[in-house]
């Protein structure tokens, strides 16, 4: 079975459990990104949020991004886990980990992966504000690619 490098999780992400998947004897560097739920966005106070995914396509697109990263960068291994469901302020929403022989490629690949995940993977955020309102975020400040 092909290694699956991207997954969605209904449960809390435990980085200590995820990170050993990056182990490689030739790797001298590990870079990671953690995206956390913050208590404000666009000037509004955020209480909690829901992430919704289109699972079939999110898994395929996430897997494609990590395969592209392994082809583009001189890295040894890369993984990404994204939460779905309800999250509270401070929760870990997304984790990206990369191992590489040297730190430069690890940092570069990690940054590239999180940027591509945010841009391409069909996951949506519904923010619940302290004032009781809520709303799906559909960023309109960048073009929607593909198709």
């Amino acid at each position: 079975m092909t290694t699956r490098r991207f997954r969605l999780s209904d449960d809390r992400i435990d980085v200590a459990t995820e990170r050993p998947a990056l182990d490689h004897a030739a790797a001298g560097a590990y870079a990671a990104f953690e995206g956390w739920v913050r208590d404000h966005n666009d000037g509004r106070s955020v209480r909690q949020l829901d992430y919704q995914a289109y699972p079939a396509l999110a898994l395929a697109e996430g897997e494609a991004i990590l395969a592209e990263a392994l082809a583009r960068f001189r890295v040894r291994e890369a993984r990404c886990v994204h939460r779905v469901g309800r999250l509270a302020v401070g929760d870990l929403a997304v984790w990206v980990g990369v191992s590489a022989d040297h730190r430069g490629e690890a940092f570069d690949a990690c940054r590239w992966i999180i940027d591509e995940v945010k841009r391409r993977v069909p996951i949506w955020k519904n923010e619940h504000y302290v004032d009781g309102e809520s709303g799906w975020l559909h960023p309109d400040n960048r073009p929607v690619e593909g198709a």
Partner: protein
Amino acid sequence: MNVKLLYFASLADRAGRTEETRDSAARTPRELYVEVAAAHGFAFAAERLRVAVNGAFVGWDHALAAGDEVVFVPPVSGG
């Protein structure tokens, strides 16, 4: 011809459902979007969406077949 549609995020809210099966004469996702946007009052122009058929992104002029599962993918906000 019956096609199944899945709706996510604000499109699901606007449609008041997460899925539906429609008997449609639309031959392409482009034609189908015009139909469902009118039916549900979707405000997105097609240019802001991507479209997936049976779990893979396709072009707007992809030929639809009976039983296809079609998703209009609004701008994403993960991460």
